[in-house]
């Protein structure tokens, strides 16, 4: 379970361009629940995700994972319980290292690293199996440096890395936004498959209204650093793209076109 309690963050406090990024935001995601976060630019989506992952320090408020207060923990400590796929395929992987080494780093996310050899036959076989789920042929390219992979392949790898040790919370930060539509679709399908088969507690930020309609148990709309609207249960099943866009305070045609 993921809880955000009265999270508050103000940028440039006391300056003319003061900006309230998170305004006493409250959010609870039950264990195994898949939440989809939408909202216009500057609504606080990224700030919320950064606050949950630890890269943004809150002015006040708390972040709890399965009831444990993780607010004072730095990013690398929280990583034991939480995995994140970034929007930029470059950010989530170590480019100059091989596919297998990246998988190893992900496997060790929640564990203490030892002086034992990192890669061994058993691990390589396991990685091969995990990557074969994607159907991209990555399982045959374990010794390839990640910088030689395409953006879609890198993002798919990031996804497999993120779910490899069943994190308590999975954060997806517009993780298909930088991909072409076909690749985005492949990555999205893989996401849905793994999230539902592993029953991961997932928070996905997206600008794609169709994704918000099609996937997830609950839609959470942010506006000015607060939750403006939540749609769950039967309502979520019947919601349409037009409904969602109707709730945006600033409407643009681009939203509809992008969907």
């Amino acid at each position, binding site marked *: 379970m993921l809880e955000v309690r009265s999270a508050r963050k103000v940028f440039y406090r006391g300056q003319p361009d003061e900006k309230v990024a998170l305004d006493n935001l409250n959010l609870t995601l039950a264990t195994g629940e898949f939440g989809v976060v939408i909202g216009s630019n500057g609504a606080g989506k990224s700030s919320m995700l950064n606050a949950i992952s630890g890269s943004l320090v809150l002015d006040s408020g708390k972040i709890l994972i399965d009831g444990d207060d993780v607010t004072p923990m730095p990013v690398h400590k929280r990583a034991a319980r939480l995995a994140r796929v970034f929007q930029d395929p470059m950010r*989530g992987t*170590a480019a100059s290292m091989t596919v297998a080494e990246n998988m190893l*780093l992900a496997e060790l996310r929640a564990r203490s690293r030892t*002086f034992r*050899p990192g890669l061994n036959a058993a691990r390589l076989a396991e990685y091969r199996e995990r990557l074969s789920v994607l159907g991209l042929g990555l399982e045959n390219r374990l010794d390839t440096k990640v910088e030689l992979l395409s953006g879609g392949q890198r993002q798919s790898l990031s996804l497999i890395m993120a779910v490899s040790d069943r994190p308590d919370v999975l954060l997806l930060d517009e993780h298909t936004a930088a991909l072409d539509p076909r690749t985005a679709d492949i990555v999205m399908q893989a996401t849905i498959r793994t999230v539902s088969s592993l029953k991961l507690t997932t928070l996905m930020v997206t600008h794609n209204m169709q994704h918000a309609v099609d996937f997830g148990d609950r839609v959470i709309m942010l506006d000015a650093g607060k939750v403006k609207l939540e749609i769950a249960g039967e309502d979520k099943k019947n919601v349409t793209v037009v409904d969602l866009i109707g709730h945006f305070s600033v409407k643009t045609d681009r939203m509809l076109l992008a969907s």
Partner: protein
Amino acid sequence: MGFIETTLSSFVSLIPVTLAQSLILSFVVLGIMIPFRMLSFPDLTSEGAFPLGGSVCGVLMVAGASPIVAIAGALLAGFVAGCCTAFIHLRFRIHTLLAGILVMTMLYSVNLRIMGRSNLSVFGSPTVFDWVPGLQGGFPASKIVVAGIVVLAVFLLLYFYFKTEKGTAMRAVGSNPDMAEAQGINVWAATIGGIGLAGAFSATGGALMVQSQGFADVNMGIGVLINGLAALMIGEAITGKQTVLRQLLAPFVGAIVYYQLVSLCLAAGMPPPDLKLATGLFVLIMLALPSIKRGRGPAAAKETFRE
């Protein structure tokens, strides 16, 4: 004909001496390579850590410590110096290069304080080079044997280390600090530890140099960084850097080839004062090559360093 003959004969006669020297200085090249390539942290500390190792080693030897203890003391001092550079960069967000320059400059005074004067003779004190059975200490052969064994041991240790779980994590910090942090790696600890390790190697090089040449000098570090960089560039041109093995071989191969090249130039009659200019130009060309090549053909992959 006479020129080539005399050049070659004086070059060949210098080989044992330069080989011993290059094995010792390969520690400095290693101390430059690890921050630069494994941690993407261009680090200038070695210019100060090298004489620091020499000073500490010299003072300990004069005080009657065993040569191994003297080297251990130097290693520890170098580790601390490296840690300082990394800490200054991480804590105060000062550019890596500036942090290195600060530490290197401050170390000059520290080294003078440690020795109490600018030059310290350790002639007559026992050195690690005395311990080779069947050879007389102080001759190139014994230096080659001792330095060679240490080089081999360090190379093997590092090779296995960078393949372990911890070593892989350290390389990830150099490859992508954001990703490393998100994978639960403590970027601070890995950076401080890695740069400290590099400082320790540079200082060890200084300590071995002092035992080899019989004196410590506060100015022995001048130019050691650019020599080390040149050696690293040559090594990488020969071995490549695609794998951990190749990247790790580069400092050792580079050090040996570089100092042989220098020796060849000197044997051919190049005035020693011109050496630094030549070395600097060489490093400049090696660093500029990717951008010169980019003029034609596709853009080369850009290397990113921490700032």
